[in-house]
């Protein structure tokens, strides 16, 4: 197998498996770990995960393709997830989206040339009280305005 976890992560996987009554229940955690480690989940990674959890590869693939937050393709250093659901839309998400596109020169789903930013639009992020919101990697930013957005993007290295 071409991909494998280092020793440290393998210990972590065993730890995860111990948390659940069934081995296969750990699949979510293990996949997330794999994504962290490999950047995104390729079929090789799925096969590796399957071998760790004694699962059929197709089962792992089902899980991976079901959840949108498992990345199937490489993304930039910063993954911008802009909410375009109703509340955010009403509060100006469209303007924000236009501003990002203009600033970074990419369309939704694309990554900038140097591989720094990837732009996604997502459904509700569960923070409508701060609309419009977006997430960059794991961090949520609310009450955005185009100026605030500019500053935020500029501040990211």
């Amino acid at each position, binding site marked *: 197998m071409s991909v494998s976890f280092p020793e440290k992560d393998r210990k972590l996987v065993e730890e995860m498996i111990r948390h659940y009554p069934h081995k296969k229940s750990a699949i979510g955690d293990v996949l997330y770990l794999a994504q962290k480690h490999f950047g995104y989940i390729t079929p090789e990674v799925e096969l590796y995960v399957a071998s760790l959890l004694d699962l*059929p590869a*197709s*089962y792992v*693939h*089902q899980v991976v*393709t079901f959840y949108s937050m498992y990345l199937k393709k490489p993304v930039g250093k910063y993954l911008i997830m802009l909410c375009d659901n109703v509340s955010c839309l009403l509060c100006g998400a469209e303007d924000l989206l236009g501003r990002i596109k203009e600033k970074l020169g990419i369309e939704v789903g694309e990554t900038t040339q140097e591989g720094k930013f990837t732009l996604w639009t997502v459904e509700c992020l569960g923070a409508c009280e701060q609309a419009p919101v977006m997430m960059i990697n794991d961090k949520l930013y609310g009450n955005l305005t185009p100026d605030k957005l500019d500053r935020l993007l500029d501040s990211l290295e």
Partner: protein
Amino acid sequence: MSGKEKKTVKTVIDGKEYAFPQGTTILEAAKSVGIEIPHFCYHPGLSIAGACRMCLVEIEKMPKLQISCHMTVDDGMVIHTNNERVKKARKAMLEFHLVNHPLDCPVCDQGGECNLQIYYMMHGNYISRLRENKVKKTKKAFQIGPHVMLDQERCVLCSRCVRFCQEISKSNELGIFQRGDREEIDVFPDMQLNSPYSANVVDICPVGALLDKDFRFKTRAWYLESADSICPRCSRGCNIEIHYNLNRPWKNEGRRLARLKPRCNLEVNDWWVCDEGRYSFKFIDDDNRIEGPLVRTDGKARNTGFKEALELAAESLRNSAASTDVEIAVLVSPRAANEELYLLKHVFSEQLPGTRLVFSSATPFEPTEDDILRKKDKNSNTRGAELMGLTPDSAQVWSLSELKDAVLAGEIGALYICYHDITGLPEEFSAGWAEALERIPLVVYQGTNTCPTSEKAQIIFPAAAFAEREGTVTNFEGRVQIQQKVFEPLSEALPGWQIIQSLGVALGGSYEYESAEEVFADLAKNEPAFAGLSYEKIGSGGFVAKDAKA
């Protein structure tokens, strides 16, 4: 099921009260009293998914409709399977199933045997209310394995095939990937649906999403006629249906037999058949079939007609028998039907006493085996030969190597070969046979197709293939099952029992069997293992011969 008597419950279905064993699903219960409830995802051989929601029924005092494939009957239940509410729900479900289903019934091989079509005609027959474009997949039909084509657009996501791969073949190639309206059946990237049971997913697919590559576009389902038979490929003796087409000879490249489908027999093969068996029929309409009795003189074979060939064979065999130096050997095949084996045994021992019987269960096929269906012994009737005492276990019967030794010692004057292609067997059996055959003065070959062994024979009799003659075979556990005659033998070929009987008559005996059934009646009389059996008793499900378990 732990030996305890199951409780019966009284349930009203569509206004009539019936009694069912407790734990029966409503769908099965209704089916047992002749009420078909539409369904896609339910299959009696698989786990219950409840994915398609087509089998909804109304149960009184339950607020919502219930899926009948999962709900079990219970005392006092009042079930409506076909009232307005149920029909409306079903119609709505069908509409959902059809939202993204392409309108390509004309090019779909499932057309004519497609549940979607049937249910649409039953419940819908409406004009689509859909205004949006249907979701189109990037790929239309593509091959996902050696035998299976997948068209994701047609899929209704019943997950039968996924469950088959998980539960029956345990090969897990298929999965339902993505979600929502992008959900699709597929194999894991870069993998193939190549389990030895892969083509079963075609049978269980209720729509045209999974199709047989071999059968693809050859003909249409409604042109085919069906007959019950037994798979000849291994000693499991899976029950099959032979689908054939005689009325439209321009279809299927002129081949009569279009496909084999498994036939449910819970004692033998459940609902399944392996791919090896499924595609084992090609030899029947192959170009190398032997079409007439051939007599080879000076290396040239010519069709002489049965009369001349039989007389020549009888004369030559008698000459060999008259000689005291050499013996006559008969190579018995475990691929022959019980009737043929019986006649071989009797005709030769009665007409040419001292004939040496030789038995070999070697086949040119790979001896694959698993604990699902496939058996290592790739002969359909080894057990039958065993029960008749034709295996080398008994002292009178030689094995192939014993025969070879005798041949090389010049002790064999004539060899009658049934179906065996000796030179085509794996090395351990066939070694040296090419030369050994040359040393036998007279080789008579009875078989269906031309093979290297038949090329070495002086007299060749064309035998009917398993679908062209009636006969019984005995599977590994001693179950005697009937192979029906589906269509007439190719050109001059005759059923094996008829050839042997005619040879017996030519040798001076009197055998007057009119049909395989009569042969079997005698067989049952004279062979203790088959005592009491008859075609009637065997029926379509087969019957385990007495003493077979021993």
